[in-house]
């Protein structure tokens, strides 16, 4: 009897599971929200979510407080809920006035005067004034968080009247407009933030307590308001009822923090998400031919590069410019792009494709093994040499492990007689320290942009931060080193583009850096949407998306 009861109980449990699973058959779509939402709201496409747009993006949102935001994807949310003085409107090359109505640089380029637009209100109903702008930017500076360095060139801010903001810079900074587009420079409702523990005082790094509040709600003037944030799960944005501008027809965003590419692909095909931000080459291929789904492969501003130390004591043979050129000629750039993924490109130098002043891409047929061998022979290494190639083991370039690029470099250089011994270490396991201290002779590394402006690449110049990591001091190439200040001074876009082009011309076949690839982003989206595009500053600019 007991046996029967036990067996029956177990069978009932198995059947209950089965029924629960299959109970969804036929009704699964309606329960999963896809068809229900579409039907209830007269959705246009099977599997659509009505006037709600669901976005899947990788997790790792440590904060949504604009003053601290520096990770890659939180700007997607911050840009929806807050606004900045300037903005990249779909095109990433030059910032356009957003909250700013007009702006003017002083003759010495050390004062920037910005006039605000009229009639801007926050979601709270408060009117935006120049005091809010000054508060927000000084708070970011004084919080001394990751993005605070962007305020380094800002000495002080004056607000002579409610509509005028005067930035006093300690040095000319042609990238200041682009910095003012960054999520951390968002204008906050200072009254609300102060009421919740915010301060812009010099001791804000210890006294400001508004982060908890700003992690759960927003205090901006953007098209949307942050309704809820369930960490590592989802973020919900609803339309700002007091939005001063013209809103799109998307009522609500649900941001699913789901980083796995396979899961994103499946959810997109099922209509459970409308935009999948972190697809891969493989998952993009799986989506080929899926009805109602479109894909985007486009270069990001993240680059993978080879660094050869100019100090002979550290770099050994790779400190020799002839050897550097030989390596440059020996690299298989199209092969690097295959590893990097569809949509990647190879810029001529360290100013990325898509930036103001970019001079184009390195030709596919640039590789010349015979010429590389000849250069090595000229440098005194006719039989090549052995060398350690350092690589960071726990970092990736847009999802591709740095070790994959190191292996490809090793294979390419083996063809010209350079035998690389790959030395792999974790960032925290000594690699990071050695890299930052300029102790690595030959390494593969990546660089992501902190804000969307070509000036973020100036550290690669001799005498600058990254240049010095490669032992490249200003006195090694004074003419090139001088272009740093010249670029910072060029507040006129045409003039700046010209200097940036000059930098690329001078580093195309010269210097310790070889850009291997500019990595791509792979985005998939439901074709019921219009205006979906990958954006470097905001990842996805939701303020440009409409439902067809």
């Amino acid at each position, binding site marked *: 009897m007991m046996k029967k009861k036990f067996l029956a109980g177990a069978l009932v449990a198995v059947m209950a599971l089965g029924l629960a699973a299959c109970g969804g058959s036929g009704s699964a779509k309606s329960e999963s929200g896809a068809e229900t939402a579409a039907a209830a709201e007269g959705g246009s496409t099977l599997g659509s979510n009505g006037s709600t747009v669901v976005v899947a993006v990788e997790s790792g949102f440590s904060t949504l407080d604009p003053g601290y935001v520096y990770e890659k994807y939180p700007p997607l949310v911050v840009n929806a809920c807050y606004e900045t003085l300037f903005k990249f409107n779909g095109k990433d090359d030059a910032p356009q006035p957003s909250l700013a109505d007009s702006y003017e640089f002083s003759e010495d380029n050390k004062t920037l005067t910005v006039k605000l637009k009229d009639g801007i209100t926050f979601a709270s109903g408060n009117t935006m004034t120049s005091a809010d702008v000054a508060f927000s930017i000084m708070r970011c500076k004084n919080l001394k968080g990751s993005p605070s360095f962007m305020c380094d060139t800002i000495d002080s801010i004056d607000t002579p009247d409610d509509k005028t903001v005067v930035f006093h810079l300690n040095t000319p900074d042609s990238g200041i407009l682009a910095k003012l587009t960054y999520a951390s420079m968002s204008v906050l409702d200072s009254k609300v933030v102060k009421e919740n523990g915010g301060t812009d005082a010099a001791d804000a790094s210890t006294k400001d307590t508004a982060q908890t509040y700003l992690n759960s709600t927003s205090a901006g003037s953007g098209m949307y308001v942050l309704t809820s944030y369930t*960490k590592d799960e989802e973020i919900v944005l609803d339309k700002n009822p007091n939005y001063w501008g013209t809103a799109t027809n998307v009522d609500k965003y*649900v941001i699913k923090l789901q980083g796995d590419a396979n899961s994103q692909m499946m959810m997109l095909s099922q209509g459970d998400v409308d935009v999948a931000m972190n697809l891969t080459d493989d998952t993009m291929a799986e989506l080929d031919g899926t009805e109602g789904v479109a894909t985007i492969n486009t270069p990001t501003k993240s680059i993978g590069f080879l660094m050869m130390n100019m100090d002979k004591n550290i770099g050994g043979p790779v400190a020799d410019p002839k050897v550097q050129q030989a390596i440059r000629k020996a690299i298989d750039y199209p092969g690097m792009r295959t590893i990097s993924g569809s949509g990647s490109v190879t810029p001529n130098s360290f100013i990325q494709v898509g930036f103001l002043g970019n001079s184009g891409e390195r030709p596919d047929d640039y590789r010349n093994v015979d010429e590389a061998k000849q250069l090595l022979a000229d440098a005194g290494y006719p039989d090549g040499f052995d060398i350690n190639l350092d690589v960071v083991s726990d970092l990736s370039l847009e999802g591709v492990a740095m070790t994959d690029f190191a292996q490809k470099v090793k294979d390419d250089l083996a063809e010209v007689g350079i035998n690389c011994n790959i030395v792999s270490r974790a960032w925290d396991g000594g690699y990071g320290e050695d890299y930052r201290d300029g102790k690595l002779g030959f390494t593969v590394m990546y660089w992501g942009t902190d804000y969307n402006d070509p000036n973020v690449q100036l550290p690669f110049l001799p005498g600058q931060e990254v240049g010095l990591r490669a032992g490249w001091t200003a006195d090694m190439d004074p003419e090139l080193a001088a272009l740093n200040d010249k670029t910072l001074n060029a507040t006129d876009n045409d003039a700046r583009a010209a200097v940036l082009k000059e930098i690329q011309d001078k580093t195309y076949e010269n210097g310790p850096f070889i850009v291997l690839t500019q990595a791509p982003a792979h985005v998939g989206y439901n074709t019921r949407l219009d205006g979906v595009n990958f954006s470097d500053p905001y990842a996805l600019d939701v303020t440009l998306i409409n439902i067809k």
Partner: protein
Amino acid sequence: MDRVKFILKRLVYLVLMLFGMATLVFILTKMIPGDPAMANLSQRALSDPEIVAAFKAKHGLDKPIIVQYGLYILNLLQLDLGTSIRTNTPVLTELNRCFPATFELALFAIIIAAVLGIFFGVISAIKRNSVIDQIVRVISVTGVSIPSFWFALLMLYFFYYKLHIMPGPGRLSSIFSAPPKITGMYVLDSLLEGEPAKALDAFRHLILPGLVLAAFTMGLITRTTRSNLLDVMGTDYIRTARAKGVSQRKLITHHALGNALIPVLTVIGLGLGNLLGGMVLVETIFNWPGVGQFAYQSVMTTDYPSIIGVSLLIALNYLVINTIVDILYGIIDPRVRYQ
């Protein structure tokens, strides 16, 4: 009385062991190479000594290690696990957020694993060396050896992507908002909210990750049940009972299974402890905001307070579960005495 004394003694041990664990984990995390500033600040921010100094001061990293330890233990005595370096939120709040998600999934998984594991184990033992036994052995070996991330993707691929009979990743479908937090377990909270449709949706979201997590423990339980039942069935008292004419069914249910289940309880307890520690890969694939994801992100950002907090939580899980298992031993087999 013995049982009460036993539990009280265990509670004292528990507190002492937790402090021991806190000290051990504190020392270990400080010994591991890594600098929270390097892991949490951007490359450009790291070049600014003022930002680095402010970061260290904010998180108390500028103090000597012995002072950091003293402060940590002092806070721990007040049930304060410190503030997460990564999220700037109290660690207790973070654990309170992610543990219920893990607990709900782990509980579901262990129930499946226990029910199916014991069922298969008994069937397999009864039908020893038959075709059914072979099939069950294949299932249990597969369950133990299949990589969970692969199994997770496979389950999603077939049941969600191809057959459309199961919901996708996440704890709830997009049309539902999270229920008001009472226990943090969505099925229960949705029922308490009076939303049966939401509770059913939350339950359906448990099934695929639950099955994936159950597979490993189920395999272990099946094999343990089978081998223990076979051992017990070969003992003298069973032979005597059989000689006295006790039916095979009664023999198993009344005489053998109780004894065979004692080691199985240990496996179930360890399995639950293991599941409560969080499963990073399965949680990632199923977008489950549990302890595993939090632990992974904490380790990747050298977030000392969170790493210690998660370690203490895992230790606490095992200590509590082992105590419960020990108590259950006595209930299943009265010969077991509390000492």
